[in-house]
């Protein structure tokens, strides 16, 4: 076999195809990738070290800056872990509000994924539409929590504010609008033969080794394995809401895209059910004095289903008013490093940022 000369190509931290700040070092022969190695650490801000210097409530400001496209699952997982340690009861209404906030976060993150996926495949029409429509959901967040992207709204013991009146039917109106828009998106991207040709059979995650590699979320569901934290370990009120988890066979970019396309419709369904049967009552089991609030010693592991997959918080407390050790494992931790290095060899250079986007890799989640 004639051994072609290998060139190394750095899809460096500064590259329009890489969302965020991470470097994929490719050994390339002609147009196909021979080997890939990811280099991270560009967005490391020592978040876990800083959290040891903040008390339990102040940690929330750091938490939601942790993964940029989707801050809410971080707050919820941390809040649930602390509630488990403190065994603090969350009122029923707060649970429903939390589920609505989570599903809204899932939808705005889906629209961002949708923009990244079609942008990296060369279609510059739908990123404009989907990020434009995402702003409607961010407006909802702004009314509810005051912040566009970072909300700091979910606290241990419930949520910070009750729903402003008129917000609930504004959500329903936005849901109808988004649902109408989703059909148009399908016409442009999912029914587009060139996108199907580009996406099918590319970046295949094998079904048998998927769980071993630590693949979670829509990528795992894309390989045909039905696993979703909302069903396996229902938290908040997910057991009272009926929704189904879509799975696809094949494990390539196309299967993952279909899974995500179906998941948004489920989110809309969940939001509608959560809004209609949300009880009245308290929304916040108030912490007596947040500054001097000490959580009993112990360790807790809580996980929630974010758009990219299962996010786990391992919180250790030694009884003081500062968290002793918080270690976070986002879905991108394994997708961005191990899984990417295993499925990139053999792919075309044109598909590297395409695959990176379909795996839902969010670099700040890898290095915190």
């Amino acid at each position, binding site marked *: 076999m004639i051994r072609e000369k290998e060139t190394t190509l750095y899809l460096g931290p500064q590259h329009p195809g890489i969302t965020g700040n991470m470097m994929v070092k490719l050994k390339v022969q002609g147009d196909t990738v021979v080997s890939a190695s990811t280099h*991270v*650490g560009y967005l*490391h801000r*020592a978040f*876990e*070290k*800083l959290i*040891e*210097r903040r008390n339990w409530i102040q940690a929330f400001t750091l938490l939601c800056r942790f993964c940029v496209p989707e801050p809410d699952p971080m707050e919820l997982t941390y809040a649930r872990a602390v509630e488990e340690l403190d065994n603090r009861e969350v009122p029923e209404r707060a649970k429903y509000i939390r589920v609505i906030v989570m599903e809204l976060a899932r939808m705005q993150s889906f629209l961002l994924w949708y923009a990244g996926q079609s942008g990296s495949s060369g279609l510059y029409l739908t990123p404009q539409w989907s990020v434009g429509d995402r702003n409607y959901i961010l407006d909802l967040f702004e009314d509810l929590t005051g912040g566009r992207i970072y909300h700091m709204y979910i606290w241990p013991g419930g949520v910070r504010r009750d729903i402003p009146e008129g917000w609930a039917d504004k959500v329903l109106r936005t849901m109808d609008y988004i649902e109408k828009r989703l059909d148009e998106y399908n016409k442009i991207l999912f029914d587009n033969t060139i996108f199907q040709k580009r996406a099918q059979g590319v970046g295949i995650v094998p079904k048998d080794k998927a*769980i*071993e*590699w*630590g693949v979670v979320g829509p990528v795992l569901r894309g390989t045909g*394995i039905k*696993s979703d934290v909302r069903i*396996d*370990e229902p938290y908040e009120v997910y057991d009272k809401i009926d929704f189904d988890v879509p799975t696809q066979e094949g494990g390539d970019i196309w299967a993952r895209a279909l899974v995500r396309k179906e998941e948004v419709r489920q989110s809309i369904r969940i939001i509608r059910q959560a809004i209609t049967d949300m009880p009245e009552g308290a929304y916040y089991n108030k912490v007596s004095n947040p500054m001097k609030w000490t959580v009993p010693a112990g*360790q807790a*592991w809580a*996980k929630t289903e974010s758009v990219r997959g*299962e996010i*786990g918080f*391992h919180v*250790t407390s030694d009884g003081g008013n500062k968290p*002793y*050790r918080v*270690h976070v*494992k986002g879905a991108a*931790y*394994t997708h961005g*490093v*191990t*899984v990417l290095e*295993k499925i990139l060899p053999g792919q075309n250079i044109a598909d590297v940022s395409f695959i990176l986007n379909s795996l839902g890799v969010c670099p700040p989640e890898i*290095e915190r």
Partner: protein
Amino acid sequence: MTNLIKENKLLDAVTTAFKIKGKVIRGRRVEVFADKNTVSSILLFAKKQLGYIHLAHMTCVDWIEQREFEMIYTIYSPVEKITLFVKTRIDRENPVMENIDTIWDQANTYEREMREMFGIEFPGLIGEHDFLLEDWDQIPPMRKEFDTHKYAAQTFFSRPGREDAKDVRDEISKRSGTAVPDFAKKYSRES
């Protein structure tokens, strides 16, 4: 209380096989305390026999008073939907832990991070030393004795901020010489 049959069955399976202590924390959460060098056999046993194929998490807690690192391996079985914690304690001075790269490939990333952040040595771990930081010459930063505030104050410049909580508008007007705008006057402390 939900019936903990499955959890207790799992606990007995592991504790009898390896004669170690453990307890059921709550529904779906079981923890087992193991000795340092039996951890990888427990993990292999759990993965192959009991079906705990998903390594959800690997972390290290630095107990500085007891002079120990606590290594926690979180594994999860999609079939039984239970999370098993395998916890072990290793000495803090020269921490060495066996490398479980062969059981799960993804453990390589966790171990590289722990080697860089805590200074734990994993013999036989492939991968460069610089995982997150670049040319780091201090002690591994996540250890408790490393004070990040002191280090930041030394190396990075900090802009001279306002010494005490004076009202911003008065400061600005003093500096720029313009009077405090009247809409702000009723909030200003001076008047």
